[in-house]
């Protein structure tokens, strides 16, 4: 780890100021960033911890019933307190291990946008709104490819708002070593249609499977997608699975998510 300065502001405003300085970086739970620093793969001048900002922590219900989660809320808190959106709480409860869940945050996960992470599937599958210190970003606009998002330099995710669906479920098929998602599928049924978001599978990061969404919007049952197939092109191939295998899993897991949600 290279030496760095450390700041722990207590308001979003102060955090934004601190992040404006040269080579400053936000620190959420550190579950991605700290290992990166330890391997000397990043060298920020200043780490600005978001952990002291009370207004960025916790779960509440918004005016139109949406579940609102502060950007610095840990996975453990979401799993314990987001009971109004059971599929989301359940997803959070299966991220990493207890140590990771007690430190890692939703803001850090969405900012990092690891192609195998779980939260991006929930956010995209729910068409959540990513609230930053500057603006509101719809999930459809937010995810822009692996490790790439709409966030600008120094922009902080302060809150994430999830409209609560009628039914939803997340199916995570774990990569045996990391236990991130080898493939994960989040299915959410809203009154105006079904959304299917896939993580772990694509070279482009989290994405929607629109064919399945159409079929499921018409008929919310696993049978509805039995005729569909997922092309392997552009899917990840590595030690843990070929693109063909991942394509197969996308379909299997989508079916399972629908069955579990229904």
């Amino acid at each position, binding site marked *: *780890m*290279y*030496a760095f300065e450390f700041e722990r502001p207590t308001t979003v405003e102060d955090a934004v100021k601190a992040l404006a300085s040269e080579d400053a970086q936000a620190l959420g739970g550190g579950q991605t960033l700290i290992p990166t620093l330890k*391997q*000397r793969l990043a060298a920020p001048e200043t780490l600005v911890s978001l952990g002291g900002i009370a207004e960025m922590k916790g779960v509440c219900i918004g005016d139109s019933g949406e579940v609102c989660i502060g950007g610095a809320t840990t996975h453990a808190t979401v799993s314990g307190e987001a009971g109004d959106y059971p599929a989301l709480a359940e997803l959070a409860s299966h991220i990493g291990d207890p140590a990771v869940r007690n430190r890692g945050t939703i803001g850090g996960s969405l900012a990092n946008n690891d192609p195998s992470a779980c939260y991006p599937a929930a956010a995209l599958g729910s068409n959540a709104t990513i609230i930053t210190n500057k603006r509101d970003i719809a999930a459809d606009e937010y995810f822009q490819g692996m490790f790439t998002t709409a966030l600008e330099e120094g922009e902080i995710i302060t809150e994430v708002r999830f409209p609560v669906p009628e039914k939803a479920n997340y199916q995570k*098929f774990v990569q*045996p*070593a*990391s236990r991130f998602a*080898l493939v994960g599928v989040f299915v959410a049924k809203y009154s105006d249609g079904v959304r299917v978001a896939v993580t772990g599978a694509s070279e482009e990061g989290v994405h929607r499977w629109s064919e399945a969404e159409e079929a499921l919007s018409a008929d919310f049952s696993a049978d509805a997608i039995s005729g569909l197939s997922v092309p392997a092109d552009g899917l990840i191939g*590595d*030690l*843990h*699975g*070929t693109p*063909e*295998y991942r394509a*197969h*899993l996308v379909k*299997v897991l989508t079916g399972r998510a629908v069955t579990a949600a229904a």
Partner: protein
Amino acid sequence: MPKDGGIGASSKRREDVRFLTGRGRYTDDININNQTYVHFLRSDVAHATIKGIDTAAASEMPGVVRIFTGADFEGIGSIPCGWQVTDRHGEPMQEPAHPVLAQGKVRHVGDPICAVVADTLEQARDAAEAIELDLEELPAVVDMKAAVQDGATKVHDDLTSNLCYDWGFVEENREAVDEAIKSAAHVTTLELVNNRLVANPMEPRVAVGDWNAGTDDYTLYTTSQNPHVIRLLMGAFVLGIPEHKLRVVAPDVGGGFGTKIFHYAEEAFCTFAAKQVGRPVKWTSSRSEAFMSDAHGRDHVTKIELAMDADNNFTALRTETYANMGAYLSTFAPSIPTWLHGTLMAGNYKTPLIYVNVKAVFTNTVPVDAYRGAGRPEATFQLERVVDKAARELGVDPIELRRQNFITEFPYATPVAVEYDTGDYNATMDKLAEIGDLSGFEARLAESKKRGKLRGLGVNCYIEACGIAPSNLVGQLGARAGLYESATVRVNATGSISVMTGSHSHGQGHETAFPQVIAEMIGIDESQVEIVHGDTATSPMGMGTYGSRSLAVGGSAMVRAAEKVINKAKKIASHLLEASEADIELKDGQFTVAGTDKSVAWGDVTLAAYVPHNYPLEEIEPGLEETAFYDPNNFTYPSGAYCCEVEVDPETGKVTIESFAAADDFGNIVNPMIVSGQVHGGIAQGVGQALLENCSYDENGQILSASYMDYAMPRADDVPFYSVDHSCQTPCTHNPLGVKGCGEAGAIGSPPSVVNAVVDALQRAGHDVTHIDMPLTPGKVWAAMNG
């Protein structure tokens, strides 16, 4: 009625108190005043010529004490190999030099090029980044079969090729085996890979070198399974330091699994550099470094053929194996695929003719050496897989085919040079059927089917040769070391006992089990006995712990020393009791005169030995301390039968282990609980190999699974509650305790069961699948099911 002490009691592991409460003292806990830290700058390419190293700027960095390169080790010895294998043609193996720091070339990712010694570790790392390396990359040799083709790039320019040796065993049988296979009624052939593993002990390797300018004495603290072996190899062959000037200490060691047997460059570096810089030098491996510098295990590519007559009797066995040595010869590397592998190919069966061919190959990968089981898992896996495949081809019950070919008479001389002293393979198979509830399988199968899952049952046997080994025999086979073990039994004045053993405990539980033996022999409480180990300054020259040898060899040395102590104590007792020595009996800590009620307590006799007022000084010396060296006259042969039931998810290919049962014959048992624990841990590692673990290289020699993000270790929820039994006991006939060793059995015996079970599940579901290479990841199983 379970005993509450002595041999056969499940005494609680006394060492766990400190291990589980964070009070262990590991090498990394050792910090010496004024110590420096070393960071190794390692190659990030698999193969390159070193054109230049510029350390000028780095040397000026804050805190830097000195930067070493290969040039500083000219004239210093090469890291030695402890075993010379002779090839099929009577020629010695090719043995390349292995410098402490790379000279001229780097040969694997992780090969150390420079060592930066600085006041702090972070300063050393900062300076390492300022070193300018000029590496000219060369093509990497990764695939073993390609490595031995004519014209292949050579890992070592001064060797004739990448072939370390081409070993044939038993060479005289070669043609007879070929003939028998030609004329067989049925031949089953299987090609398979025994996947490369990284041992991953919980504690990474650490070395602290210290040198005393006043005495010219060196001390090395290191994470080793055998400190005396390190002292001999490093002192005599690398650094030229005589034993009396070199102390090697291996304090608490957090697991070894074989990978901490070997003498590593980092140990020699820290010892050497301590004198050069005049300050202690400490190195602590990071987990990332461990993946590219700890010796790896397994990595065999094998073709095996099993011939049978018309009645399904095994008539001949032929195997051809390519065994990866990596870039250099690690300490025992050449012996693993040969003498610890070829000699086990008879397994539990009376196959009359066997020929084993092994080609050991240099590649641009991390050196490969012993990992829990070492050679025997590779032998067991291929044999038990091919027998299973044969049964399926012949349409006979895999258990019956095994039973039909079992060796049933002992001693049994195999056609691969070893003599099994005892065993009862039908007994362990019967026991397995009981504890694994084999007759209930059909019902469980039906239940799995109801839930949409495929279910399979896999069974296998194993035999291993443990308790390595008769020194004169291994000497003939090429070992450059003796393989006896030592113990000093020091009785203190008040009767408590310290046993200094050459065995080393790094999780096995010696500190609990060894005292049980002494307590049994004398009839005192176990708490009166303590084990001292891990320091060349306190224990007599010993060979250390590996190959499931500690109780069988080290325990035997301890028994011999204790017998000497008891004999002397009887002499003292006879004096105190004024009786003939022949009439003295020792029981429950009391010496009695046979047939009388005269007695004297153990503690009174020991006190007399050190306060010899009333003592036969003309006949015997005061004191009560004896040393024994024990050299076994054969290996021990633990054996057993294992079974595994799996479920396979037909949609995803995911395998889950539903049950696992192990019926072992370890001979006599000192502590049943510790034995169960050893089997549990071994099975976890075997399941890890079968389903999860794989050290994978790409064609450029980069490790693809170099961290836990990609290298899958088994976790608690990957394994079931095991059912283990060791009540089948045919005691070893040639050591005083009748024990055989249990440390590796689980890792040796479990992989074939898992793979046999998955193949069984797929075949029952109508898939034409005869083999899948380990690890059986969901993706591979799915691909196998889908052609």
